[in-house]
């Protein structure tokens, strides 16, 4: 019958194709070339997260190769041949039990591991010397507000956000007076940072691939649980990774991770400038 | 989900139940529609706290009385329809009359709702001006109103079939569906009335 023609040819097609999928999964071996793999990690929690990523990578990679090798072996071994009948078998409850139990165990174990880490990187209190920085996202950019000389970021409230108070600073809090704003996210290496995340219009994303950090900025809410510790000096880009309109494709901000000394210098200048300025809220510098 | 095989012939014997079954599945999804809306309401109201401002026009006793009456109309219309159903199927007296009565009661409810919307609008409460409460109020009652309206149309269609003698002990699927639908719309209103007017 027509549909039986070219069994061999089609078999080769299937195999070639399946092997291609297999081979494909093999490249992107850990850290060989930056092109195929993650950008170098630059934050403490990021290092932890990468461990988990690798763990899953090897787990799923193993599962994939295992299943596919067996599968392809079956496909060759059990291709139709003259006079050979298929085995008449409806199933096997012992097997069902095995391949239900094992994945269940693996998945629950994996959940335990990943959830434990989730607590580490998100829930745990940031260290004492954490510096809090307010981040305000808007169509289409970010601006940042640093604590002034007191080292304490002033209170703010989304309800107070307005054209001339873009951070919604609370004037009743003296600390806000000396807070200063910046268009660049300047960070000191190894110094913990907590983000006070806000949005003025739509939902934006706070995404730094090298820090392995993502958090949506939701208008009308302040999200203050994201914190991280930069571990590599260098400049990075903060990218908005939540579709937020026609300018989304280019909504980003510069991040400079510098030595403590350099940071202090920069910080002093800014504080001085802020003190100079009469108003507690100098107009935000855009980009 | 019953495992025994039902044949087409069996289905034919107790014919309408396949129609009723279909209607129930449909109502299940209708229920999910309102469930979605009502969950939204609960989340929003919970979050709004003091921001949940009931327009004066709704609070005042007069409107309240009107709405209660309208609610009673709708509930009683379920009963009139129920009794109408039995009579129409058995083709005994009074069925058509009760059906007409049901239609009138349903229309009365709709009329009241229309008036309520208009008064609210005149007093400056509309989709965009009555805060989150208004959003929920107009959309929920609006959705329900559309359902009642469709229900009334179905009732009228049923009446026509009754008048043209198209409802017999063996042919009353449409009547049955209308009944189920009407009761459903009725129950939904009891919920909406409680959450929008009383709570």
């Amino acid at each position, binding site marked *: 019958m027509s549909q039986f023609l070219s069994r061999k040819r089609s078999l080769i097609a299937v195999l070639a194709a399946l092997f291609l999928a297999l081979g494909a999964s093999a490249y992107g071996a850990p850290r060989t070339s930056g092109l195929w793999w993650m950008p170098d990690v630059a934050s403490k929690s990021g290092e932890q997260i990468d461990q*988990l990523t690798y763990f*899953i990578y090897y787990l799923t990679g193993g599962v994939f190769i295992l299943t596919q090798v067996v599968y392809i072996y079956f496909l060759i071994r059990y291709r139709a041949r003259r006079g050979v009948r298929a085995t008449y078998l409806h*199933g096997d409850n012992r097997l069902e039990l095995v391949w239900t139990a094992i994945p269940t165990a693996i998945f629950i174990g994996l959940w335990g*591991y990943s959830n434990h880490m989730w607590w580490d990187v998100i829930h745990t209190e940031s260290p004492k010397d954490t510096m809090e920085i307010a981040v305000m996202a808007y169509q289409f950019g970010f601006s940042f507000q640093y604590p002034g000389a007191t080292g304490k970021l002033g209170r703010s409230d989304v309800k107070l956000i307005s054209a001339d108070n873009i951070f919604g600073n609370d004037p009743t809090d003296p600390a806000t007076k000396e807070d200063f704003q910046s268009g660049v996210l300047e960070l000191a290496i190894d110094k913990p940072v907590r983000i006070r995340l806000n949005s003025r219009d739509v939902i934006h994303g706070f995404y730094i691939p090298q820090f392995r950090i993502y958090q949506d900025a939701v208008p009308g809410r302040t999200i203050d649980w994201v914190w991280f510790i930069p571990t590599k000096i260098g400049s990075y*880009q903060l*990218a908005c990774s939540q579709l937020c309109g*026609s300018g989304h494709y280019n909504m980003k901000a510069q991040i400079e991770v510098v030595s403590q000394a350099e940071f202090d210098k920069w910080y002093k200048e800014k504080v001085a400038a802020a003190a100079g300025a009469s108003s507690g809220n100098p107009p935000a510098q855009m980009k | 989900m019953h*495992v025994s095989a039902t044949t087409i012939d069996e289905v034919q014997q107790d014919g309408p139940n396949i129609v009723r079954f279909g209607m129930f*599945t449909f109502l299940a999804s209708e229920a999910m529609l309102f469930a979605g809306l009502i969950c939204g309401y609960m989340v929003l109201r919970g979050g709004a706290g003091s921001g949940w401002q009931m327009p004066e026009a709704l609070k005042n006793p007069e409107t309240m009385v009107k709405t209660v009456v309208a609610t009673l109309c709708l509930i009683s219309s379920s009963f009139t329809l129920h009794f109408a159903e039995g009579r129409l199927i058995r083709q005994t007296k009074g069925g058509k009359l009760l059906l007409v009565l049901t239609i009138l009661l349903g229309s009365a409810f709709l009329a009241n709702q229309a008036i309520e919307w208009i008064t609210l609008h005149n007093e400056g409460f509309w989709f965009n001006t009555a805060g989150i409460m208004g959003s929920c109020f107009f959309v929920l009652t609006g959705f329900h109103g559309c359902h009642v309206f469709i229900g009334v149309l179905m009732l009228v269609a049923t009446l026509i079939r009754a008048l043209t003698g198209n409802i017999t002990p063996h042919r009353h699927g449409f009547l049955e569906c209308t009944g189920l639908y009407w009761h459903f719309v009725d129950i939904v209103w009891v919920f909406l009335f409680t959450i929008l007017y009383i709570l």
Partner: protein
Amino acid sequence: MAEILADTFPGEAHVSHAHHPELSFFRKYIWSEDHKTIALQYLFTSLFFLLVGGSLAMGVRFQLAFPGAPVPLIGTLLPSWLVTSAGAFQPGGYNGLVTMHATVMVFLVIMPLLIGVFGNFLIPLKIGAPDMAFPFFNALSYWLFLLSGIVLLSSFFVPAGFPASGWTSYAPLSSHAQYNGTQAGQSCWCVGLFLNGLASIAGAANYITTIINMRAPGMKMFRLPLPVWALFITAILLLLAVPVLSAAAAMLFCDLNFGTSFFSASNYGQPLLWQHLFWFFGHPEVYIMILPAMGLVSEILAVNARKPIFGYKAMVFAMVSIAGLGFIVWGHHMFVSGMNILLSATFSFSTMVIAVPSAIKTFNWMGTVWGGSIRYTTAMCFALAFVSMFVIGGLSGIYMAATPVDLFIHHTYFIVAHIHYVLFGGSLFGVFGAIYFWFPKMFGRMMNETWGKIHFALAFIFFNCTFFPMHNLGLNGMMRRIADPMLYDHLQSSQPINVFCSVSAFALGLSTIPFLVNFFYSIFKGPKAPNNPWRSTTLEWTVPSPPGHGNFETTPTVYHGPYEYSVPGMEEDYLPQNQPAPETARLAAH
């Protein structure tokens, strides 16, 4: 009209039709109430939409490979909201392309192909029924679906064009004209999805009623072929999940046009409410798009391996649990949305658990080919590929289910790769396989196997070339929905991968052409098909190809399960469901 709903019992419908087979052209092809015709209407319509959605994807790929380059040929013809005067895509227009690409593919291609086409065509034939329970609503369902497609695509012509807030339409971007700038288009999106929902619900209620009430004598629930089981479960999902989207779409429409504040940040609205409503629908939706494919593939595997499906009941229970759990995992799309972070932990757990039934199915498929006598028909090739592709897509799902990893890959191309491995390598491969497999029954002719194999090879190779590297792009930190990766320092080095993906994507697009040619040629010129070309056991193969009106001369009686292949003691290697087993046959009691 409602007559048909109410007063014709399916049996009657059958009989009365039989009385006057001569139907007017209009009743026969336009407003047909024959489930087979409706299935074909769905088939042609959604294949057309596949070309639309595909062409949009080609636009997406072109922009990503050559940002800022004018679109060849048609560039200057396109409207100004989409392209610059030079004919290159605008960033905003690009968002529109992505949004419509996904909306079309999900709501106008995959769902109708799986549910509209194979649900309609196979359910009555496989359970031994003359037609659906409510033929009228079946027809209505198709026309509502077509209308929804027209409304959605009409957004091309409205001011500011396509909706551009993604197929997930997150508020408040989608709910405020001043933010999205595409009020008209976004409204079309809401209305279109609402209508599409009505169509789905009409169909789903129909399927459930039919399967529960109209099975032929002896067709116990556990004798149903797996595609029927899959479609039955899918119908329940549709029935319960889709209305929630309808509600959300209605609220969004009001926010957008009547100034309500459900999803806005001000006036006590809640942006996250949209996400919860959307994903409460959205996750069941993704299983709605895979379960029918799983059912179809299971059958193709069994038939072409000449073996009973391995672990029939396990397969059924796996699908049931996927459906059940599917309603409590929606939060895995919102791990980093600002939702309570404790919830993330719980949703992560349920997501891990829901992977188990998929694992069970995978292993049962492997068990099915084990010890088989595998015929490599085109349908079989696609079915076999489905399993591998689904495994890849599923395994990438595990990365995201682990909340900390999702912190890194959320909204990157890793997700895009995942999407396409499960939806294209999964659902669409399943559909292709099913088309090659049931084509003879649908049109009474065979498709050309050689060209089928060519289509398969091209599609398979270029599919993997297009989408596998997207995992790597994602790990590079390439964000979704950005019109120009070159603007980001960390992405410039990986731009060559984008070019590679795009070139493969064009090839993948072109690979559909052999399919289309083969398809339409075979409809008219293909060799005549026998009743049962694949030597299958299920009921649709016991009637002529294509089956006549009313399907069965006399209601068949079913004697055993759907996959009695290679039964010892018979010289035929298959035992049709409607034939009592011969004395010699040694059926396994299972």
